[in-house]
Protein backbone atom coordinates (compact mmCIF):
# COMPACT_ATOMS: atom_id res chain seq x y z
CA UNK A 1 0.00 0.00 0.00
CA UNK A 2 1.19 3.43 -0.79
CA UNK A 3 1.48 6.30 1.63
CA UNK A 4 -1.73 7.82 0.35
CA UNK A 5 -3.95 4.78 0.69
CA UNK A 6 -2.55 4.11 4.17
CA UNK A 7 -3.24 7.59 5.39
CA UNK A 8 -6.36 8.49 3.46
CA UNK A 9 -8.61 8.20 6.48
CA UNK A 10 -6.65 10.67 8.55
CA UNK A 11 -5.98 12.99 5.62
CA UNK A 12 -9.71 13.36 5.00
CA UNK A 13 -9.94 14.98 8.44
CA UNK A 14 -6.62 16.78 8.56
CA UNK A 15 -6.78 18.44 5.16
CA UNK A 16 -9.94 20.50 5.82
CA UNK A 17 -8.96 21.04 9.47
CA UNK A 18 -5.56 22.49 8.57
CA UNK A 19 -6.92 24.39 5.60
CA UNK A 20 -9.53 26.24 7.67
CA UNK A 21 -7.17 28.68 9.44
CA UNK A 22 -5.49 29.44 6.10
CA UNK A 23 -8.84 30.86 4.93
CA UNK A 24 -8.60 33.36 7.77
CA UNK A 25 -5.07 34.29 6.72
CA UNK A 26 -6.12 34.74 3.08
CA UNK A 27 -8.75 37.32 4.06
CA UNK A 28 -9.71 38.01 0.45
CA UNK A 29 -13.20 36.71 -0.31
CA UNK A 30 -12.40 35.23 -3.73
CA UNK A 31 -9.10 33.68 -2.65
CA UNK A 32 -10.65 32.10 0.44
CA UNK A 33 -13.43 30.71 -1.70
CA UNK A 34 -11.02 29.25 -4.27
CA UNK A 35 -8.95 27.72 -1.49
CA UNK A 36 -11.96 26.20 0.28
CA UNK A 37 -13.31 24.85 -3.01
CA UNK A 38 -9.97 23.25 -3.84
CA UNK A 39 -9.80 21.68 -0.37
CA UNK A 40 -13.36 20.37 -0.65
CA UNK A 41 -12.42 18.86 -4.03
CA UNK A 42 -9.27 17.23 -2.64
CA UNK A 43 -11.20 15.82 0.31
CA UNK A 44 -13.81 14.45 -2.06
CA UNK A 45 -11.13 12.65 -4.10
CA UNK A 46 -9.64 11.28 -0.86
CA UNK A 47 -13.05 10.08 0.31
CA UNK A 48 -13.67 8.26 -2.98
CA UNK A 49 -10.25 6.61 -2.63
CA UNK A 50 -11.07 5.67 0.95
CA UNK A 51 -14.41 4.17 -0.02
CA UNK A 52 -12.82 2.13 -2.81
CA UNK A 53 -10.10 0.96 -0.45
CA UNK A 54 -12.62 -0.13 2.17
CA UNK A 55 -14.83 -1.87 -0.37
CA UNK A 56 -11.82 -3.82 -1.66
CA UNK A 57 -10.01 -4.57 1.61
CA UNK A 58 -12.62 -4.39 4.35
CA UNK A 59 -12.43 -2.52 7.64
CA UNK A 60 -9.45 -0.25 8.17
CA UNK A 61 -8.06 0.55 11.61
CA UNK A 62 -5.74 3.53 11.70
CA UNK A 63 -3.69 3.89 14.85
CA UNK A 64 -2.79 7.47 15.70
CA UNK A 65 0.91 7.82 16.36
CA UNK A 66 1.34 4.05 16.18
CA UNK A 67 -0.34 3.48 19.57
CA UNK A 68 -2.56 0.42 19.56
CA UNK A 69 -6.16 0.71 20.64
CA UNK A 70 -7.53 0.71 23.33
CA UNK A 71 -4.66 2.84 24.65
CA UNK A 72 -4.18 5.08 21.68
CA UNK A 73 -6.89 6.79 19.68
CA UNK A 74 -7.79 4.81 16.58
CA UNK A 75 -9.77 5.63 13.50
CA UNK A 76 -12.02 2.75 12.66
CA UNK A 77 -13.36 2.88 9.13
CA UNK A 78 -15.77 0.33 7.73
CA UNK A 79 -18.21 0.59 4.83
CA UNK A 80 -20.71 2.81 6.68
CA UNK A 81 -18.05 5.25 7.84
CA UNK A 82 -16.53 5.43 4.37
CA UNK A 83 -19.95 6.03 2.83
CA UNK A 84 -20.75 8.82 5.30
CA UNK A 85 -17.35 10.44 4.71
CA UNK A 86 -18.06 10.28 1.00
CA UNK A 87 -21.51 11.88 1.48
CA UNK A 88 -20.06 14.78 3.48
CA UNK A 89 -17.14 15.35 1.12
CA UNK A 90 -19.28 15.03 -2.00
CA UNK A 91 -21.90 17.49 -0.77
CA UNK A 92 -19.17 19.93 0.29
CA UNK A 93 -17.49 19.62 -3.11
CA UNK A 94 -20.78 20.40 -4.86
CA UNK A 95 -21.95 23.14 -2.49
CA UNK A 96 -18.65 25.07 -2.51
CA UNK A 97 -18.76 26.12 -6.18
CA UNK A 98 -22.41 27.06 -5.65
CA UNK A 99 -21.66 28.96 -2.45
CA UNK A 100 -19.66 31.79 -4.04
CA UNK A 101 -22.53 33.71 -5.64
CA UNK A 102 -25.02 32.71 -3.00
CA UNK A 103 -22.83 33.90 -0.15
CA UNK A 104 -21.86 37.09 -1.98
CA UNK A 105 -25.55 37.93 -2.17
CA UNK A 106 -26.45 37.01 1.40
CA UNK A 107 -23.46 37.87 3.61
CA UNK A 108 -21.46 41.11 3.94
CA UNK A 109 -18.16 40.93 2.06
CA UNK A 110 -15.91 41.38 5.10
CA UNK A 111 -17.22 38.15 6.61
CA UNK A 112 -16.79 35.89 3.57
CA UNK A 113 -13.46 34.40 4.52
CA UNK A 114 -14.86 33.49 7.94
CA UNK A 115 -17.75 31.66 6.30
CA UNK A 116 -15.37 29.52 4.26
CA UNK A 117 -13.21 28.89 7.33
CA UNK A 118 -16.23 27.72 9.33
CA UNK A 119 -17.41 25.67 6.37
CA UNK A 120 -14.13 23.73 6.28
CA UNK A 121 -14.14 23.28 10.06
CA UNK A 122 -17.68 21.97 9.98
CA UNK A 123 -16.72 19.56 7.22
CA UNK A 124 -13.65 18.38 9.16
CA UNK A 125 -15.79 17.82 12.26
CA UNK A 126 -18.41 15.85 10.38
CA UNK A 127 -15.84 13.66 8.63
CA UNK A 128 -14.05 13.15 11.93
CA UNK A 129 -17.26 11.93 13.54
CA UNK A 130 -17.60 9.37 10.79
CA UNK A 131 -14.07 7.95 10.92
CA UNK A 132 -13.27 7.93 14.60
CA UNK A 133 -13.19 4.72 16.60
CA UNK A 134 -12.93 6.44 19.95
CA UNK A 135 -16.09 7.40 21.79
CA UNK A 136 -14.71 10.57 23.37
CA UNK A 137 -13.10 11.63 20.13
CA UNK A 138 -16.60 11.42 18.67
CA UNK A 139 -17.72 14.08 21.17
CA UNK A 140 -14.81 16.36 20.27
CA UNK A 141 -15.55 16.15 16.54
CA UNK A 142 -19.25 16.56 17.28
CA UNK A 143 -18.48 19.84 19.00
CA UNK A 144 -16.12 20.98 16.24
CA UNK A 145 -18.87 20.51 13.69
CA UNK A 146 -21.63 21.85 15.95
CA UNK A 147 -19.84 25.04 16.99
CA UNK A 148 -18.99 25.86 13.41
CA UNK A 149 -22.54 25.15 12.28
CA UNK A 150 -23.92 27.52 14.96
CA UNK A 151 -21.70 30.23 13.51
CA UNK A 152 -22.74 29.40 9.96
CA UNK A 153 -26.43 29.51 10.83
CA UNK A 154 -26.11 32.81 12.70
CA UNK A 155 -24.72 34.45 9.53
CA UNK A 156 -28.12 34.39 7.83
CA UNK A 157 -29.31 37.84 6.81
CA UNK A 158 -32.59 37.66 8.75
CA UNK A 159 -32.21 38.60 12.42
CA UNK A 160 -34.15 35.47 13.31
CA UNK A 161 -31.04 33.56 12.22
CA UNK A 162 -29.44 34.77 15.47
CA UNK A 163 -32.15 33.42 17.72
CA UNK A 164 -32.37 30.21 15.67
CA UNK A 165 -28.63 29.76 16.07
CA UNK A 166 -28.71 30.45 19.82
CA UNK A 167 -31.57 28.01 20.36
CA UNK A 168 -29.72 25.40 18.37
CA UNK A 169 -26.61 26.13 20.44
CA UNK A 170 -28.47 25.58 23.70
CA UNK A 171 -30.19 22.39 22.56
CA UNK A 172 -27.12 21.09 20.73
CA UNK A 173 -24.91 21.67 23.78
CA UNK A 174 -27.43 19.90 26.00
CA UNK A 175 -27.41 16.97 23.58
CA UNK A 176 -23.62 16.78 23.42
CA UNK A 177 -23.35 17.09 27.20
CA UNK A 178 -25.91 14.31 27.66
CA UNK A 179 -23.67 12.16 25.49
CA UNK A 180 -20.65 13.01 27.67
CA UNK A 181 -22.57 12.15 30.85
CA UNK A 182 -23.54 8.77 29.41
CA UNK A 183 -20.03 8.19 28.20
CA UNK A 184 -18.63 8.99 31.66
CA UNK A 185 -20.85 6.33 33.18
CA UNK A 186 -19.81 3.85 30.51
CA UNK A 187 -16.18 4.65 31.25
CA UNK A 188 -16.77 4.13 34.97
CA UNK A 189 -18.09 0.65 34.31
CA UNK A 190 -15.68 -0.50 31.61
CA UNK A 191 -12.57 1.65 31.83
CA UNK A 192 -12.35 2.09 28.10
CA UNK A 193 -13.33 4.58 25.42
CA UNK A 194 -12.35 2.57 22.38
CA UNK A 195 -15.48 1.53 20.51
CA UNK A 196 -14.43 -2.03 19.64
CA UNK A 197 -13.08 -2.49 23.16
CA UNK A 198 -16.34 -1.22 24.63
CA UNK A 199 -18.25 -3.65 22.42
CA UNK A 200 -16.51 -6.58 24.12
CA UNK A 201 -16.64 -5.29 27.69
CA UNK A 202 -20.16 -3.82 27.80
CA UNK A 203 -22.15 -7.10 27.75
CA UNK A 204 -20.65 -8.05 31.14
CA UNK A 205 -22.18 -5.00 32.79
CA UNK A 206 -25.23 -4.56 30.56
CA UNK A 207 -27.76 -5.17 33.32
CA UNK A 208 -26.39 -2.64 35.78
CA UNK A 209 -28.38 0.46 36.53
CA UNK A 210 -25.43 2.64 35.55
CA UNK A 211 -25.32 1.29 32.02
CA UNK A 212 -29.09 1.58 31.65
CA UNK A 213 -28.90 5.27 32.57
CA UNK A 214 -25.79 5.74 30.41
CA UNK A 215 -27.51 4.24 27.41
CA UNK A 216 -30.52 6.51 27.85
CA UNK A 217 -28.21 9.54 28.05
CA UNK A 218 -26.22 8.75 24.90
CA UNK A 219 -29.29 7.89 22.85
CA UNK A 220 -31.17 11.04 23.89
CA UNK A 221 -28.00 13.07 23.33
CA UNK A 222 -27.76 11.96 19.74
CA UNK A 223 -31.53 11.99 19.36
CA UNK A 224 -31.27 15.75 19.90
CA UNK A 225 -28.52 16.12 17.33
CA UNK A 226 -30.28 14.11 14.63
CA UNK A 227 -33.62 15.85 15.25
CA UNK A 228 -35.49 12.68 16.14
CA UNK A 229 -39.11 13.59 16.77
CA UNK A 230 -39.95 15.07 19.34
CA UNK A 231 -36.41 16.42 19.84
CA UNK A 232 -36.50 18.36 16.55
CA UNK A 233 -37.49 21.80 17.84
CA UNK A 234 -34.21 23.46 16.84
CA UNK A 235 -34.22 22.29 13.24
CA UNK A 236 -36.93 24.23 11.33
CA UNK A 237 -35.75 27.73 12.30
CA UNK A 238 -32.08 26.85 11.93
CA UNK A 239 -32.59 25.59 8.38
CA UNK A 240 -34.99 28.37 7.43
CA UNK A 241 -32.86 31.34 8.40
CA UNK A 242 -29.35 30.04 7.69
CA UNK A 243 -27.72 31.27 4.46
CA UNK A 244 -28.91 29.15 1.49
CA UNK A 245 -25.58 27.46 0.83
CA UNK A 246 -25.21 26.64 4.52
CA UNK A 247 -28.69 25.15 4.69
CA UNK A 248 -27.97 23.02 1.63
CA UNK A 249 -24.77 21.71 3.20
CA UNK A 250 -26.10 21.17 6.73
CA UNK A 251 -29.43 19.68 5.68
CA UNK A 252 -27.61 17.20 3.47
CA UNK A 253 -24.90 16.21 5.95
CA UNK A 254 -25.30 17.18 9.62
CA UNK A 255 -28.33 15.06 10.52
CA UNK A 256 -26.98 12.15 8.48
CA UNK A 257 -23.74 12.11 10.42
CA UNK A 258 -25.71 12.17 13.68
CA UNK A 259 -27.77 9.23 12.40
CA UNK A 260 -24.49 7.50 11.62
CA UNK A 261 -23.25 8.14 15.17
CA UNK A 262 -26.40 6.62 16.58
CA UNK A 263 -26.01 3.65 14.22
CA UNK A 264 -22.46 3.24 15.48
CA UNK A 265 -23.54 3.37 19.11
CA UNK A 266 -26.38 0.91 18.71
CA UNK A 267 -24.71 -1.54 16.35
CA UNK A 268 -21.04 -1.34 17.35
CA UNK A 269 -20.59 0.00 20.87
CA UNK A 270 -23.74 -1.66 22.21
CA UNK A 271 -23.70 -4.24 19.42
CA UNK A 272 -23.29 -7.33 21.59
CA UNK A 273 -25.72 -5.99 24.15
CA UNK A 274 -28.38 -5.81 21.44
CA UNK A 275 -30.24 -2.85 22.99
CA UNK A 276 -33.24 -3.36 20.71
CA UNK A 277 -34.12 -6.50 22.61
CA UNK A 278 -32.49 -6.13 26.04
CA UNK A 279 -33.51 -2.51 26.62
CA UNK A 280 -36.73 -2.63 24.61
CA UNK A 281 -35.41 0.13 22.37
CA UNK A 282 -36.99 -1.19 19.17
CA UNK A 283 -40.58 -0.30 20.06
CA UNK A 284 -39.63 3.21 21.20
CA UNK A 285 -37.49 3.97 18.17
CA UNK A 286 -40.02 2.64 15.66
CA UNK A 287 -42.80 4.60 17.33
CA UNK A 288 -40.77 7.83 17.34
CA UNK A 289 -39.65 7.27 13.75
CA UNK A 290 -43.24 6.77 12.57
CA UNK A 291 -44.45 9.76 14.59
CA UNK A 292 -41.66 11.83 13.09
CA UNK A 293 -42.57 10.71 9.57
CA UNK A 294 -46.19 11.76 10.02
CA UNK A 295 -45.71 14.83 12.19
CA UNK A 296 -42.90 16.16 9.99
CA UNK A 297 -44.89 15.64 6.79
CA UNK A 298 -48.12 17.04 8.25
CA UNK A 299 -46.38 20.13 9.59
CA UNK A 300 -44.63 20.57 6.25
CA UNK A 301 -48.02 20.76 4.51
CA UNK A 302 -48.98 23.88 6.46
CA UNK A 303 -45.80 25.91 5.99
CA UNK A 304 -45.77 29.15 4.06
CA UNK A 305 -42.00 29.35 3.64
CA UNK A 306 -40.57 26.73 1.29
CA UNK A 307 -37.27 26.45 3.17
CA UNK A 308 -39.18 25.76 6.37
CA UNK A 309 -41.39 23.30 4.50
CA UNK A 310 -38.28 21.42 3.40
CA UNK A 311 -36.91 21.56 6.95
CA UNK A 312 -40.03 19.85 8.31
CA UNK A 313 -39.76 17.34 5.52
CA UNK A 314 -36.20 16.66 6.76
CA UNK A 315 -37.63 15.67 10.14
CA UNK A 316 -39.89 13.21 8.36
CA UNK A 317 -36.99 11.86 6.29
CA UNK A 318 -34.87 11.38 9.41
CA UNK A 319 -37.80 9.29 10.61
CA UNK A 320 -37.33 6.98 7.61
CA UNK A 321 -33.63 6.56 8.42
CA UNK A 322 -34.30 5.82 12.09
CA UNK A 323 -37.02 3.39 11.05
CA UNK A 324 -34.53 1.58 8.85
CA UNK A 325 -32.09 1.33 11.74
CA UNK A 326 -34.69 0.10 14.21
CA UNK A 327 -36.43 -2.60 12.19
CA UNK A 328 -33.15 -4.36 12.50
CA UNK A 329 -32.92 -6.82 9.61
CA UNK A 330 -30.32 -6.44 6.88
CA UNK A 331 -32.73 -5.19 4.21
CA UNK A 332 -34.26 -2.46 6.37
CA UNK A 333 -30.82 -1.42 7.60
CA UNK A 334 -29.65 -1.28 4.01
CA UNK A 335 -32.67 0.92 3.31
CA UNK A 336 -31.80 3.21 6.21
CA UNK A 337 -28.18 3.55 5.11
CA UNK A 338 -28.98 4.05 1.44
CA UNK A 339 -31.54 6.67 2.45
CA UNK A 340 -28.78 8.62 4.21
CA UNK A 341 -27.02 8.91 0.86
CA UNK A 342 -30.18 9.41 -1.20
CA UNK A 343 -31.67 12.00 1.09
CA UNK A 344 -28.41 13.95 1.10
CA UNK A 345 -28.65 14.17 -2.70
CA UNK A 346 -32.28 15.19 -2.95
CA UNK A 347 -32.48 17.53 0.05
CA UNK A 348 -29.18 19.14 -0.92
CA UNK A 349 -30.54 19.66 -4.43
CA UNK A 350 -33.87 21.03 -3.23
CA UNK A 351 -32.30 23.50 -0.82
CA UNK A 352 -29.92 24.60 -3.57
CA UNK A 353 -32.88 25.21 -5.88
CA UNK A 354 -34.38 27.35 -3.12
CA UNK A 355 -31.03 29.13 -2.84
CA UNK A 356 -31.29 29.97 -6.57
CA UNK A 357 -34.77 31.40 -5.99
CA UNK A 358 -33.53 33.40 -3.02
CA UNK A 359 -30.65 34.71 -5.12
CA UNK A 360 -33.00 36.07 -7.77
CA UNK A 361 -36.08 37.00 -5.71
CA UNK A 362 -34.72 37.57 -2.20
CA UNK A 363 -37.36 35.39 -0.57
CA UNK A 364 -38.41 31.78 -0.27
CA UNK A 365 -41.99 32.47 0.76
CA UNK A 366 -44.49 30.29 -0.99
CA UNK A 367 -46.39 33.34 -2.33
CA UNK A 368 -43.23 34.55 -4.06
CA UNK A 369 -42.92 31.24 -5.92
CA UNK A 370 -45.80 32.22 -8.20
CA UNK A 371 -44.93 31.95 -11.86
CA UNK A 372 -41.52 30.39 -11.20
CA UNK A 373 -42.25 27.77 -13.87
CA UNK A 374 -41.98 30.57 -16.42
CA UNK A 375 -39.59 32.96 -14.73
CA UNK A 376 -37.00 30.42 -13.56
CA UNK A 377 -37.86 27.28 -15.55
CA UNK A 378 -34.62 25.42 -14.83
CA UNK A 379 -34.74 26.05 -11.09
CA UNK A 380 -38.42 25.13 -10.96
CA UNK A 381 -37.73 21.93 -12.92
CA UNK A 382 -34.94 21.03 -10.49
CA UNK A 383 -37.36 21.52 -7.62
CA UNK A 384 -39.95 19.30 -9.30
CA UNK A 385 -37.46 16.48 -9.87
CA UNK A 386 -36.18 16.79 -6.30
CA UNK A 387 -39.76 16.77 -5.11
CA UNK A 388 -40.44 13.58 -7.04
CA UNK A 389 -37.43 12.01 -5.28
CA UNK A 390 -38.80 13.15 -1.92
CA UNK A 391 -42.13 11.50 -2.67
CA UNK A 392 -40.39 8.35 -3.81
CA UNK A 393 -41.54 8.02 -7.41
CA UNK A 394 -39.80 5.27 -9.41
CA UNK A 395 -36.65 6.33 -11.30
CA UNK A 396 -35.62 8.59 -8.43
CA UNK A 397 -33.50 7.77 -5.38
CA UNK A 398 -36.46 8.13 -3.02
CA UNK A 399 -38.03 5.05 -4.57
CA UNK A 400 -34.92 2.95 -3.94
CA UNK A 401 -34.83 3.85 -0.24
CA UNK A 402 -38.50 3.25 0.31
CA UNK A 403 -38.36 0.00 -1.66
CA UNK A 404 -35.78 -1.42 0.75
CA UNK A 405 -37.53 -0.02 3.82
CA UNK A 406 -40.87 -1.53 2.81
CA UNK A 407 -39.22 -4.84 1.99
CA UNK A 408 -37.44 -4.80 5.34
CA UNK A 409 -40.71 -4.20 7.17
CA UNK A 410 -42.46 -6.93 5.19
CA UNK A 411 -39.62 -9.37 5.88
CA UNK A 412 -40.52 -9.05 9.56
CA UNK A 413 -44.18 -9.45 8.70
CA UNK A 414 -44.92 -5.89 9.85
CA UNK A 415 -47.23 -4.90 7.03
CA UNK A 416 -48.83 -2.00 9.00
CA UNK A 417 -45.41 -0.34 9.08
CA UNK A 418 -44.91 -0.98 5.37
CA UNK A 419 -48.32 0.57 4.79
CA UNK A 420 -47.43 3.60 6.91
CA UNK A 421 -44.21 4.16 4.97
CA UNK A 422 -46.25 4.42 1.79
CA UNK A 423 -48.93 6.54 3.42
CA UNK A 424 -46.35 9.02 4.73
CA UNK A 425 -45.02 9.28 1.17
CA UNK A 426 -48.48 10.33 0.05
CA UNK A 427 -48.29 13.20 2.53
CA UNK A 428 -45.07 14.20 0.78
CA UNK A 429 -47.08 14.41 -2.45
CA UNK A 430 -49.28 17.04 -0.82
CA UNK A 431 -46.53 19.36 0.36
CA UNK A 432 -44.49 19.01 -2.81
CA UNK A 433 -47.62 19.63 -4.89
CA UNK A 434 -48.44 22.82 -2.98
CA UNK A 435 -45.14 24.29 -4.12
CA UNK A 436 -45.40 22.92 -7.65
CA UNK A 437 -48.92 24.29 -8.02
CA UNK A 438 -47.84 27.80 -7.02
CA UNK A 439 -44.77 27.59 -9.25
CA UNK A 440 -46.59 26.52 -12.39
CA UNK A 441 -50.24 27.48 -12.09
CA UNK A 442 -50.32 30.77 -10.25
CA UNK A 443 -49.54 34.20 -11.60
CA UNK A 444 -47.31 36.49 -9.55
CA UNK A 445 -49.04 39.48 -7.96
CA UNK A 446 -47.34 41.95 -10.31
CA UNK A 447 -48.02 39.69 -13.31
CA UNK A 448 -44.34 39.73 -14.26
CA UNK A 449 -43.52 36.48 -16.07
CA UNK A 450 -40.29 37.58 -17.74
CA UNK A 451 -37.45 35.08 -17.92
CA UNK A 452 -35.21 35.66 -14.94
CA UNK A 453 -33.13 32.51 -14.41
CA UNK A 454 -30.45 32.08 -11.76
CA UNK A 455 -26.79 32.27 -12.86
CA UNK A 456 -25.37 29.17 -14.50
CA UNK A 457 -22.70 28.83 -11.80
CA UNK A 458 -25.46 28.10 -9.31
CA UNK A 459 -27.59 25.97 -11.60
CA UNK A 460 -24.80 23.52 -12.48
CA UNK A 461 -24.13 22.40 -8.88
CA UNK A 462 -27.89 22.19 -8.26
CA UNK A 463 -28.29 19.96 -11.28
CA UNK A 464 -25.30 17.84 -10.27
CA UNK A 465 -27.15 16.82 -7.11
CA UNK A 466 -30.55 16.57 -8.76
CA UNK A 467 -28.99 14.62 -11.63
CA UNK A 468 -27.31 12.27 -9.16
CA UNK A 469 -30.68 11.81 -7.45
CA UNK A 470 -32.07 10.57 -10.76
CA UNK A 471 -28.98 8.61 -11.80
CA UNK A 472 -28.77 6.64 -8.55
CA UNK A 473 -32.52 6.14 -8.77
CA UNK A 474 -32.30 4.46 -12.17
CA UNK A 475 -29.10 2.54 -11.49
CA UNK A 476 -28.75 1.80 -7.80
CA UNK A 477 -26.41 -1.17 -8.13
CA UNK A 478 -23.43 0.77 -6.78
CA UNK A 479 -25.17 2.41 -3.83
CA UNK A 480 -27.10 -0.70 -2.85
CA UNK A 481 -23.95 -2.81 -3.00
CA UNK A 482 -22.14 -0.39 -0.67
CA UNK A 483 -25.03 -0.11 1.75
CA UNK A 484 -25.70 -3.87 1.73
CA UNK A 485 -22.05 -4.48 2.63
CA UNK A 486 -22.32 -1.78 5.27
CA UNK A 487 -25.47 -3.34 6.75
CA UNK A 488 -23.87 -6.76 6.84
CA UNK A 489 -20.75 -5.44 8.55
CA UNK A 490 -22.89 -3.72 11.17
CA UNK A 491 -25.11 -6.73 11.76
CA UNK A 492 -22.09 -9.03 11.86
CA UNK A 493 -20.96 -7.16 14.94
CA UNK A 494 -24.26 -7.53 16.75
CA UNK A 495 -24.96 -11.25 16.67
Amino acid at each position, binding site marked *: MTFLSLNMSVLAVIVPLMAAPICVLLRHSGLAWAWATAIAGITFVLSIGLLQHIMANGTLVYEMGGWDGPWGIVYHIDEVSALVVMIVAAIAAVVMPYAKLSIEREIPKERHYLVYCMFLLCMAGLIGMAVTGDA*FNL*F*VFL*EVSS*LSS*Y*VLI*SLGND*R*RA*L*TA*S*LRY*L*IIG*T*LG*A*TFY*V*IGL*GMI*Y*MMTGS*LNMTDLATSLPEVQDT*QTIHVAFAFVIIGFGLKLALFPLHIWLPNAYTYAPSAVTAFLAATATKVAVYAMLRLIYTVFGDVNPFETYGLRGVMIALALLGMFAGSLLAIFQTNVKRLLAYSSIAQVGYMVLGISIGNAIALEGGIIHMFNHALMKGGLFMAMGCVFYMVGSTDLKDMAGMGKRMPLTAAAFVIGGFALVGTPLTVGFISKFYLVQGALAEGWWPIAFMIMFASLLAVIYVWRVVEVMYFQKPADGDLSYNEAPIAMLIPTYVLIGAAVYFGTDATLTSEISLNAAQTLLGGSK
Partner: protein
Amino acid sequence: MIDYAFPGLLNYWIVFLLMMIGLYIVIAHENLIKKIVGLNVFQVSVFVFYISMAKIKGGTAPILADSIEVYSNPLPHVLILTAIVVGVATTALGLALVVRIQESYDTIEDDEIRDIEERSD
Protein backbone atom coordinates in the same frame (compact mmCIF):
# COMPACT_ATOMS: atom_id res chain seq x y z
CA MET B 1 -29.34 -2.84 47.31
CA ILE B 2 -27.56 0.32 46.36
CA ASP B 3 -26.05 2.37 49.12
CA TYR B 4 -26.83 6.06 48.81
CA ALA B 5 -24.60 6.88 51.78
CA PHE B 6 -24.25 10.62 52.09
CA PRO B 7 -20.60 11.46 52.85
CA GLY B 8 -19.07 8.86 50.56
CA LEU B 9 -21.10 9.92 47.56
CA LEU B 10 -21.05 13.63 48.39
CA ASN B 11 -19.39 14.52 45.10
CA TYR B 12 -22.04 12.74 43.11
CA TRP B 13 -24.81 14.42 45.06
CA ILE B 14 -23.23 17.76 44.21
CA VAL B 15 -22.97 16.72 40.58
CA PHE B 16 -26.61 15.75 40.62
CA LEU B 17 -27.67 19.02 42.26
CA LEU B 18 -25.61 21.20 39.91
CA MET B 19 -26.88 19.29 36.89
CA MET B 20 -30.51 19.81 37.86
CA ILE B 21 -29.97 23.46 38.79
CA GLY B 22 -28.25 24.09 35.47
CA LEU B 23 -30.90 22.30 33.46
CA TYR B 24 -33.67 24.11 35.35
CA ILE B 25 -32.11 27.51 34.61
CA VAL B 26 -31.84 26.66 30.91
CA ILE B 27 -35.47 25.60 30.76
CA ALA B 28 -37.13 28.10 33.10
CA HIS B 29 -35.32 31.41 32.66
CA GLU B 30 -36.24 33.76 29.84
CA ASN B 31 -33.10 35.88 30.08
CA LEU B 32 -30.67 34.60 27.47
CA ILE B 33 -27.56 35.38 29.53
CA LYS B 34 -29.02 33.35 32.39
CA LYS B 35 -29.74 30.53 29.97
CA ILE B 36 -26.10 30.51 28.88
CA VAL B 37 -24.95 30.57 32.51
CA GLY B 38 -27.33 27.72 33.30
CA LEU B 39 -25.86 25.77 30.41
CA ASN B 40 -22.44 26.45 31.89
CA VAL B 41 -23.48 25.18 35.33
CA PHE B 42 -24.87 22.07 33.64
CA GLN B 43 -21.57 21.48 31.86
CA VAL B 44 -19.53 22.12 35.00
CA SER B 45 -21.51 19.43 36.81
CA VAL B 46 -20.28 16.97 34.19
CA PHE B 47 -16.70 18.14 34.70
CA VAL B 48 -17.03 17.49 38.44
CA PHE B 49 -18.53 14.10 37.65
CA TYR B 50 -15.55 13.03 35.53
CA ILE B 51 -13.00 14.42 37.96
CA SER B 52 -14.64 12.72 40.95
CA MET B 53 -14.83 9.33 39.31
CA ALA B 54 -11.12 9.26 38.58
CA LYS B 55 -9.93 10.44 41.98
CA ILE B 56 -8.78 7.84 44.48
CA LYS B 57 -8.43 8.70 48.17
CA GLY B 58 -4.75 9.23 48.85
CA GLY B 59 -3.89 8.76 45.22
CA THR B 60 -1.24 10.92 43.61
CA ALA B 61 -0.19 11.68 40.08
CA PRO B 62 0.60 8.59 37.99
CA ILE B 63 4.39 8.85 38.01
CA LEU B 64 6.55 5.77 37.65
CA ALA B 65 8.44 5.90 40.95
CA ASP B 66 8.91 3.40 43.76
CA SER B 67 7.43 5.65 46.40
CA ILE B 68 4.08 5.88 44.56
CA GLU B 69 1.65 3.04 44.97
CA VAL B 70 -1.80 4.55 44.73
CA TYR B 71 -2.51 6.94 41.88
CA SER B 72 -5.56 8.59 40.37
CA ASN B 73 -6.64 7.86 36.83
CA PRO B 74 -5.37 10.77 34.74
CA LEU B 75 -7.43 10.00 31.64
CA PRO B 76 -10.79 11.45 32.75
CA HIS B 77 -8.97 14.55 33.98
CA VAL B 78 -7.42 15.01 30.58
CA LEU B 79 -10.75 14.40 28.86
CA ILE B 80 -12.29 17.12 30.98
CA LEU B 81 -9.55 19.50 29.97
CA THR B 82 -10.82 19.04 26.43
CA ALA B 83 -14.42 19.38 27.56
CA ILE B 84 -13.58 22.61 29.41
CA VAL B 85 -12.14 24.06 26.22
CA VAL B 86 -15.30 23.07 24.38
CA GLY B 87 -17.38 24.61 27.16
CA VAL B 88 -15.47 27.89 26.99
CA ALA B 89 -15.90 28.03 23.23
CA THR B 90 -19.62 27.33 23.54
CA THR B 91 -20.08 30.01 26.20
CA ALA B 92 -18.11 32.56 24.21
CA LEU B 93 -20.12 31.86 21.06
CA GLY B 94 -23.37 31.89 23.01
CA LEU B 95 -22.61 35.23 24.62
CA ALA B 96 -21.49 36.68 21.28
CA LEU B 97 -24.84 35.66 19.83
CA VAL B 98 -26.63 37.26 22.77
CA VAL B 99 -24.79 40.53 22.03
CA ARG B 100 -25.90 40.39 18.40
CA ILE B 101 -29.46 39.57 19.51
CA GLN B 102 -29.45 42.57 21.85
CA GLU B 103 -28.30 44.76 18.96
CA SER B 104 -31.02 43.65 16.59
CA TYR B 105 -33.96 43.03 18.95
CA ASP B 106 -33.16 45.52 21.75
CA THR B 107 -33.94 42.83 24.30
CA ILE B 108 -32.48 39.59 25.57
CA GLU B 109 -35.66 38.25 27.14
CA ASP B 110 -36.70 35.14 25.26
CA ASP B 111 -40.45 35.72 25.70
CA GLU B 112 -40.20 39.27 24.33
CA ILE B 113 -38.14 38.02 21.39
CA ARG B 114 -40.77 35.38 20.67
CA ASP B 115 -43.46 38.09 20.70
CA ILE B 116 -41.46 40.21 18.26
CA GLU B 117 -40.91 37.22 15.98
CA GLU B 118 -44.57 36.24 16.02
CA ARG B 119 -45.64 39.77 15.17
CA SER B 120 -43.25 39.91 12.22
CA ASP B 121 -44.51 36.62 10.77
